[in-house]
Structure formats: structure tokens, C-alpha cells
């Protein structure tokens, strides 16, 4: 089937099998390999992207379901510079191996839009959809809280 959607501001059309997952379409179809696959059960969140402005796990969305919609991946989050959340992850040592990081950042950007001023306990609770095996999360929690403030222009 022919699928057309907008990815990172650019309209793309590809022939895909109906069973193609959005993450497969992004990685194999468009070569956007910043979106990662960490599990097959919607647990880890490494594949998180924004679909129509909301964070979704792209391993659990059929590419066809995104037809006509706007998708943003980690590659499209910022232009030449860094998005404030990306910078916050660097500043707070919110990553080690970097594999969960793109999905983690996409999830954090969406969480920050919903609530720029969360408590540490709220931040921890809201990160429930993403697994990191390296950092023990403290750097990620700090990055989420600080990045959210930076996005809101508070700092």
C-alpha cells in the first residue's frame, strides 16, 4: 500500500506492507535510525516519537495508522543547534550508552509540554514508560525537570 505522511516537516511517500510498524517505516524505509528498538512488548520506550504532537511508542503503531499525520523523530527535534532537553541530558549526565536516549528525550519533551513544573516524585512516576539500564535514572530525572524549565523559558 502507498503511504504518505509528514516526517520531520517533510512529506514522504513509500510503498509499504500493511503490517509494517511505524518504527520499521522510520528506520528501514527512511533511514532514520535514531529511533531505536529495545523490546517487542511496548515496555522500554526506546522507540518513542511524536505522532500528531503526542509521544507514542512507534513499535506499537502501524505505519498505516500514521498516514497523513505529522511525525517528529529525534532527528527532527532541533535544527542546527540542540533542543533544550537535549542540552539538559548532556548537562546532567542523563545518558551513558545512549541507546534509550532518543526515546527518553522524546518522552521527556512531551512530558515537559504537559507540565513544565513537575516535582521530582512526579518526574519519576511519569518516566514509567521508558527503561534505562545504565544511568539509574537520577541524571534523567534531573534532565527532565531542568529541561522542562528551560523549554518554558524559565532559565
Amino acid at each position, binding site marked *: 500500500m502507498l503511504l504518505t505522511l509528514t516526517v520531520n516537516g517533510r512529506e514522504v511517500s513509500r510503498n509499504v*506492507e500493511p*503490517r509494517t510498524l511505524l518504527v520499521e517505516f522510520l*528506520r528501514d524505509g527512511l*533511514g*532514520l*535510525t*535514531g*529511533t*531505536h*528498538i*529495545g*523490546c*517487542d*512488548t511496548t*515496555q*522500554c520506550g*526506546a522507540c518513542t516519537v511524536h505522532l500528531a504532537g503526542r509521544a507514542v511508542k512507534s513499535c506499537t503503531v502501524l505505519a498505516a495508522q500514521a498516514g497523513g499525520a505529522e511525525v517528529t*523523530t*529525534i*532527528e527532527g*527535534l*532541533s535544527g542546527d543547534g*540542540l533542543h533544550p532537553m*537535549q542540552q539538559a*541530558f*548532556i*548537562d*546532567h*549526565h542523563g*545518558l*551513558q*550508552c*545512549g*541507546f*534509550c*536516549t*532518543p526515546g527518553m*528525550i522524546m518522552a521527556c519533551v512531551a512530558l515537559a509540554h504537559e507540565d513544565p513544573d513537575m516535582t*521530582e*516524585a512526579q*518526574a*519519576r*512516576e511519569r*518516566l*514509567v514508560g*521508558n*527503561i*534505562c*539500564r*545504565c*544511568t*539509574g*535514572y*537520577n*541524571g*534523567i*530525572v*534531573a534532565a527532565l525537570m531542568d529541561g522542562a524549565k528551560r523549554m518554558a523559558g524559565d532559565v
Partner: protein
Amino acid sequence: MTAAPKHQGRFGESVTRVEDRRLVTGQGRFIDDLVLAGMLHMAIVRSDRAHARIVSVDVRAALEADGVVAVLTGVDFAASGWGDIPCESMPPAITKGKWVRTPFPSLPADRVMAMGDPVAVVLAETRKQAQDACELVEIELEDLAVVASMEAAIADNAPQLYPDAPGNLCFSAELGDALKTEAAFAQAAHVITLQTRQPRLAHASMEMRGSVGVFDRRLGRYELTTSTQNPHSVRRLLAEAVLKVPAHRVRVSAGDVGGAFGLKGRLYPEDVLVLWAAERTGRPVKWVPSRSEAFLSDFQGRDHMASGEMAFDAEGHILGLRATTRHNLGCRLGPATGVSPFLSARMLAGPYVLPAAHVRVQGVFSNTRSTTSYRGAGRPEATYFLERMLDKAARQLGLTPVEIRRRNLIPAAAMPFKTALLDTYDCGDFPGVFEKALTLADWDGFAARKAVSAINGLLRGQGISYFVEVSALSNERMSVQFDPTGHATVLAGTFAHGQGHHTLYTQMLHDWLGLRYEDISVVDGDTDIIPYGGGTYASRSVTVGGSALRRACDQIIVKATAIAANLLEADPAQISFAEGIFTVQGSNKALSLSEVARAAYRVLGHPGALGVGLEAVGTYTAQPQNYPNGCHIAEVEIDPDFGTVRLVAYAAVDDVGVAVNPLLLEGQLIGSTAMGVGQALMERVVYDEAGQQLTAAFTEYAMPRAEDMPLIISALHNTPTKTNPIGVKGGAEVGTIAAPPAIVQAIEDALGFVPEPALTMPVTAAQVLRAIHREKRTEEETK
């Protein structure tokens, strides 16, 4: 984290990472991101039985499927003459060579020995086509008797997996002094017995393993790109054991590697199979598993039991230890399967004055996946046994957990300290670390916090653990090369997969050679560029890699001084070097190191006797090794209605010798603690009695998430080691070692009674709730 980190800084400063920019923008290059022209995809048909004879494999239907290029079986593999995967981790000094070797073909032809063993491989144009065709391969298996656990394997009359391994024992070796230990027990006022059990763990790095194989027919070379911790080990094993070709005919490289924790330490069957399939098909071949396939095919960790007794005098001083430590090795020996058993036996010497010890270490075969190193590798097993032993002894002797440790920790003045087993600890202030941890955790203020928890209906407990581990395994080689434009490249024998070595080595060159960050690059992970390397595991890299790099930098300064003396027309003795500048003492003549490096490549003005270019190789061999140590204190709250355990506070004081980058060190502490929390409270790979692995997805294997972790407070109490030029000990595994006993003790403390049967990791809510109910019943019955 106190001060905000810098983006550039010296050795010893908190510096953000040079690696991060590509990783936060989605520009990392992980194994599944690699796409080569003409690449085939390999999918693997795996056994759904734990132990069976392979009767037949019918590939005809699969061969007819869309996109399928080849379907290969164990019979094909056997005919190819490719060698087995060897085990190279059984220490001859301890085993005396007496251990049972196991056949380990990458694709078995006759027998599957654990669920998930490969039976056939399908090569197709797309991953989906390969996976689809796997369904069409018809396999006939004839079940054999299964031993699905260590307990089953050592039971009387257990089915025997290997004819030359009676009792399913791979080895049984001894350490220490049996007679001296017997004499110590004869003097004992108290003898405490204990049995502990470590769950089997899945490393579950967020990036799964994966490999891409290429056979270069033109040069007869095998090129493997793989998600590994140790490219040079993979190359050596492939060349020596599997392919039996010179190592220069094998290239192994790795891009970004998404975590490993011991999982990706050595060679795997799939590494062999992609190369084999690439040679047979003449096309590049990629294998990347699904998460459930990773759960079934990845080597696993821990799965250990220890039992034994400790002798004490009337005042609670340790007199001796007698223990047997047993490891479930799985169905065959992987290259590193022997690491954890022997480290766990050795590290039972512990941080306490232990005058006599006698330890028996055994390895057991079972129809489960092979085990290998898991972050900490043997030290967590030993530490858990010792710390639980001290807690139990404290209760029976009427001492506090603090007092019994104070009485037994090795005093700083006793260093270097020869242990009752194999090691001599070179340095460390164990009592100093201990007291600092008690202060940091506000141990004495616990009662007030417990009272607050009680108001909220929660039971609060605190637990403490002290550990000593061994770091700086093996040797290392690092080189520093200046190019003709005057910029420096570090060629590292270590291989970073999340630790931030590129940042750490950049800090070192910036500090030692006065180079700017932008003039330094670090390369690792390619055997064609780096002639030798030890890879990264066991907290070794900063210690051995950093020490080798220090020596390389020292040589650079010596060599560059001679070149600078020639350029400045001065006696080398008159040249001094500081902050990247060579100056002639007593003059204003000066040259930068970059200028000297550029000049070293020129013909005019640079005599041939000084060589061409500027480079140096530094090496370091840890003889002796060093001994990081620390004290971690956990506080938990239990909800008695649900049995749920929350880790609410965690304080850690560690001795890592010297901190090169406190920000990254803290990252290792917190990350390793999270894995320790997982082991204590959540994680266990489960096999049923038929050897079916029941935990094969993140829905079935629980791991810590953000809300499971408390804020961790930490401090250092360093005693720099004199065993290497930079004073650094290891620091990347402290939490996996220290957290489990501290947390389990905290749970017992919160409960206020010692459950029977004993708490077993992972201590789940169900287990805690059962213990509470059982205790209530006992109380009611005794009323």
C-alpha cells in the same frame, strides 16, 4: 552532584561528555543501524525444548519461501570444519587443569541442550522474509531427560549431561588452608552457618546483541561488525579457535554499543554464524534478534549458591571461614564462564581480618543457557554471603551490625594485608570508609525516621554492607599518535560502550600534554586500526587504560623534548615542558607541542636520527592488581498490607583511589546501584522444571524504572593505589556488589524478625507478605 560540570576540564574535574552530542541527536551508530549493499538478513530457528536429540531438520518448504536465499543446518555447519567456541577462563593455578571441556559448535547438529539453542538459520533478502521462513522449517526432536536448575543437577541420581562429568560437575577446586581453618574452628566460641542464593539474571542491555558478517573474497578476510565489549578478544577467538587462520585475516569492529554489563564480553555463536553464512552466500549477512530471542540466546549471569560456616571468638572476632560456593554454568562453557566462580571464591577473603579460610568452588552443568560475567562477576556473590553472615552473627552474638563490622574490618595500619586466600590488599582505609558512610547515611538518626514512617503505617529498616573487590584485570596498550597537522589521536585498547572513556582520555591528554579538547580524538573498537587491546569489563579501563596512557604521554614528552631541543637549538636538559609548551630555561624561546609534532614530520630542519613523526605506545600490566572498596547503606519502607518494599534512601562511600571525573564516576555508582536494586527486589530469570524459560520479555522480567530508585547520596574516601602510575582503582561495579546485601538486611530490619524460610532474592512483595502472615500466625499460635 554539587558543582555544575564543565564542558572541558582537567583530570579530576567533573566534565560533561564529548560523546553525548551525537547520541542525543540520534546520530549514534548502533549495530542495527548498519546497512550494507546486498546485505542478507539471518533469522534463527531455535529449539523450544531444553534437552533433545535432533532427529531431522527439513528445510525444503522454507527454501521455497519468498526472498529466501539459503537455509542452513547443524549438519552443514559440522561439514564446514569451523571450530568450537572455547572456554578460556578456568584459572590453571586453581583448577590444575581439571575441568570438563564441553563441545560448543555455533550450530549444533546432534543435540540441543537448552531452550533457545539454534537448530537452523534462514538467510533472506529482508528480515521479515527470514523470520517468516523460520516457521516453515520442520524440526523433529527426541526429548532427553532435563536438569533445569542447579538444585536438580546436583541431586542424587540426576540425569548426567556429559559422560565425563559425574554429578554434572564441571570442576571442584579448593582454595585456602584446610588444616589451619580446622584449627581455627576448634577454638571458636560461636559458629554461624549460612546458605545464600543468587538469582539468575539477564543483563538486558537496552541494545540487544547483533552482528554483521562480511567475507572479502578478494583478500580472503573475514570482517565482523558486532555489538561487543571486547573486539580484540572476539578476533582472537575467531582466528585461533573457530577459523584457525592468522589474526590478520580477521577484522572485528564495533560502533556504538548500547550497554553490555558483561553480556557482550566475548565471542557468541551468532558472530560465527554471520561470517559462515557470509562466506557461503558471498553476501554480507546481518543478525539482530528480537528482545525475546535475546532473552533466550544471551548468556546469563549469577545463579549461585554458597553455604558454609564462620567461626568467631567470644568477643565477635572472626577466626575462620569454611564455605562451598557453587555456580550454575548452564549447558556449555562460554569463553568467560569461569570468571565469576573463581572470583567469587577468591573474594570470600572479604574486607575483614580473616585468619583462616578454606573454600571449595564448584561449577555445575544444567539445561539452561550458559552463564557468564554479570557486572561485578563473583564479587557480588562473595559479598552477599559474607555480609549476610555478619548480619546473622551479629544477631546471634548480641552485637549491632555496626559493632560486628567495627571489630573485624582490616585496619588501615595493617596494609598491605595478605588475605587467607589469594590476594594481598595493597592499601585502603576500610574503617575510615565505614565511619564516613555511617555519618553520610545518618545511621544514628534512624530512629526518628523510623518513627515518621510508622506514623504513615510503614515499616522502616536500615541495612549496611561493606565490600572489597579486585580491579585492573589483564594488561593494556594505548598509543598516542600525532598527525602531520599537529593533532593527537589516542588509539585505545579498551573499548567504551557507555562509560565515557573518550571524555576521560581527552581529560588526561588535555591535562598531561596541555592539548585543547578540539585537538584530541579517541579511537577504539577496530582491530584493523588498533593492534592489541583488552576491551572493557570488570572496572578495568580507567585503571589499566589510563595507566598505559599516562606512560604513552610521558614518552611523548621525552621524544618531543628531543625534537624541540633541536628546533630551539638548545640542550635537551635546558628544555622544560608545561601546559603544552616547551621552553628553553632562561630564555623566551618556546614552541607548542603541536608545533613540535608538525615539525617531526618535516624533512627540512628535522634530522632523521630523531625519527619521523611523533607517537608513543604505553603499556601497563597490573602486577599486583588493586582493590576498590566501599560501604553502602540502604533504607527501605515496607507497606505491611501489601508487602511492597520501597528503597527510600541510599548512601554510598567508596574508595576508588582517584576520581578522574566525579560526574561520570557518580553515574557508574548510581547505574550499578540500580542493577543491584533490580537483583535484590525484582530480577530473576525463571526456568520451569522442563527447562522452559518463562522470562523472555520485559513484561516478564522486571527491571528498575525511575520511580524505583531513590536519590543516592555519595562521597569518596580515597586511598590512591601505588600499584599504578595514576593511583586509580576501579569504580564501575560498586552498586551491583554492595546494594543487594544492604537492601535485604534493611528489609529484615524493617520487618523486625528474621523470616523462616530466609528471604531469597529477588525479595518480591509476595515473599514479604507471606513472611508477615507467617509471623502473625506464629505469634497467634504462641499466645
